[in-house]
């Protein structure tokens, strides 16, 4: 396993997790996880369902008790009751399973949570922020799962916490809800909040995270900025061309490794794929070869994920 460049070690670290182990009976749900999250950054825990992401997050917020290892959030130890009491007002949490009383309406829930935190209720403002304006009098039972998730986000944000924990925040959300949530996370990141998010959506992790930690079977198998992960593990970019009479010349050979499948030529290159593509097209034109198909594939985070874990993120039969 490699780790990308360590984040600025002088930056204050909002969360420090060291050697975290959580055992359920015979199973190590978390089998030794270590990471640190600098203040003001978004840290994404990416992995399959059951990889140990939620358990790790639960240990950070005092819901789960580590079997071994230590956790510090804002310098506080969530396993100590006194520290946990001091921590609670400073963190906001969106849990995976939305858990709100069915007969409560949006306004009442936001008012109750405002009372929990000793702040004035900002029900209308918070509802609008998560795209629930005009639903203040709607009961939970009449809201879709995605709407409940967005309300859960509003509850996590209302008291303006320093650190946010979002556990699979967009699981089961429609495209609209996802856009709203992503926009809100980006806004919070720009506002200097520290955010830990677990997800099994690669696109989500890539878009929102400053650093991504890939978790597999209770362990971290890679940790770096999304771009670094792709650069290290994504593999070569490929340029594919099908054109009558095309054959790479010496200059093109120098760009990378060429393979031929039927009429299709494929170049795997470490260089800038855009330049390689231009060179290939220029050469085909010079040869007078008529291009039937042309394709450029840049390595993605998904490629990196597969290379690192040896499996796709969605469980397939």
């Amino acid at each position, binding site marked *: 396993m490699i780790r990308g460049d360590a984040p600025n070690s002088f930056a204050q670290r909002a969360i420090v997790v060291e050697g975290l182990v959580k055992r359920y009976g015979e199973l190590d749900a978390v089998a030794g996880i270590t990471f640190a999250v600098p203040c003001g950054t978004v840290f994404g825990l990416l992995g399959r369902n059951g990889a140990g992401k939620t358990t790790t997050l639960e240990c950070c917020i005092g819901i789960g008790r580590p079997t071994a290892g230590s956790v510090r959030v804002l310098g506080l130890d969530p396993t100590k009751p006194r520290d946990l009491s001091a921590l*609670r007002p400073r963190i906001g949490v969106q*849990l995976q399973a939305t858990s*709100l009383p069915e*007969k409560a309406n949006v306004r*009442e829930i936001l008012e109750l*949570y405002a009372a929990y935190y*000793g702040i004035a209720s900002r029900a209308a403002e918070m509802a609008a922020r998560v795209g629930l304006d005009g639903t203040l009098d709607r009961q939970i039972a009449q809201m879709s799962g995605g709407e409940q998730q967005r309300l859960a986000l509003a509850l996590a944000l209302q008291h303006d916490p320093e650190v946010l924990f979002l556990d699979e925040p967009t699981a089961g959300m429609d495209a609209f809800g996802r856009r709203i949530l992503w926009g809100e996370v980006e806004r919070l990141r720009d506002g200097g909040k520290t955010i830990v998010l677990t997800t099994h959506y690669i696109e989500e992790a890539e878009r929102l995270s400053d650093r991504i930690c890939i978790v597999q079977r209770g362990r971290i198998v890679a940790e770096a900025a999304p771009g670094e992960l792709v650069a290290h593990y994504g593999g070569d970019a490929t340029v594919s061309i099908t054109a009558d009479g095309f054959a790479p010349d010496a200059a093109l050979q120098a760009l990378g490794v060429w393979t031929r499948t039927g009429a299709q030529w494929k170049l795997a290159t470490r260089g800038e794929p855009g330049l390689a593509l231009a060179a290939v097209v220029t050469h085909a034109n010079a040869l007078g070869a008529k291009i039937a198909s042309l394709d450029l594939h840049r390595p993605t985070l998904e490629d990196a994920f597969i290379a690192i874990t040896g499996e796709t993120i969605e469980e397939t039969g």
Partner: protein
Amino acid sequence: MRLLRMFLVQTKANFVWYFRRDGEMMFWTLAMPVFFLVLFSFAFSSGPNSGSSRFLVPGIIGAQVLSSGFWGVGVMLATFREKHLLRRIYITPMPPWVFFASLVVYRMALLAAQATILITVGALVFHVRIIGNPGAILAILLLGTATFVSLGTIIGALARTTESANNIASILTVPLAFLSDAYVPIDRFPHAVSSALRMLPSTQFIDTFRDVSVYGAPLAHYGVWILMLVLWTIAGTVISARTFRWV
């Protein structure tokens, strides 16, 4: 101030969410006990003026206190845990005692409403008069509620699922209501049996409440039983606090 507001908003929320907007709950809480009173009054007696209604009004109120603790608090807590409501509350700054106090006050308010309705129906339909000292009646009612809420919380703490909490509550509530002088006088059992049944906290509470309310007995006569109820309450609270799980 902050805690008081937290407590008041939570208590109001309990009332609105779990009672006022829940028709089934309102029916079970307000209508069923009256139905029992009317049914049993006619089933067990020869006429509206016989002693059975006088026995039943405090008995049914007492049975409501039991089920309030076992169902209203015990099963409710297990449901809250299963639906992950408890873990959501746990990560807020609300102190656990505020949460439990709001639950207890909410149940007490419902019990007060139930008692008022039963006493009114008892007075108007069955001529049952409450002659005891109001302070003494309130005191024994509060103590009984505390006892059965604390015992009910043990169910909420130990039951893994709503279903098992439901089963435990049914196994306890239904027989206890019949074996604790609530619906039928346990004097009808052989002496050895009724003496044994008088060891139950439910019997001690219901008998004390009945004697104080409809027979006007002074609370001081029941010192030993009151002490027992206090001990049950302490035991229930300690066990609950030790075993309660938020997740």
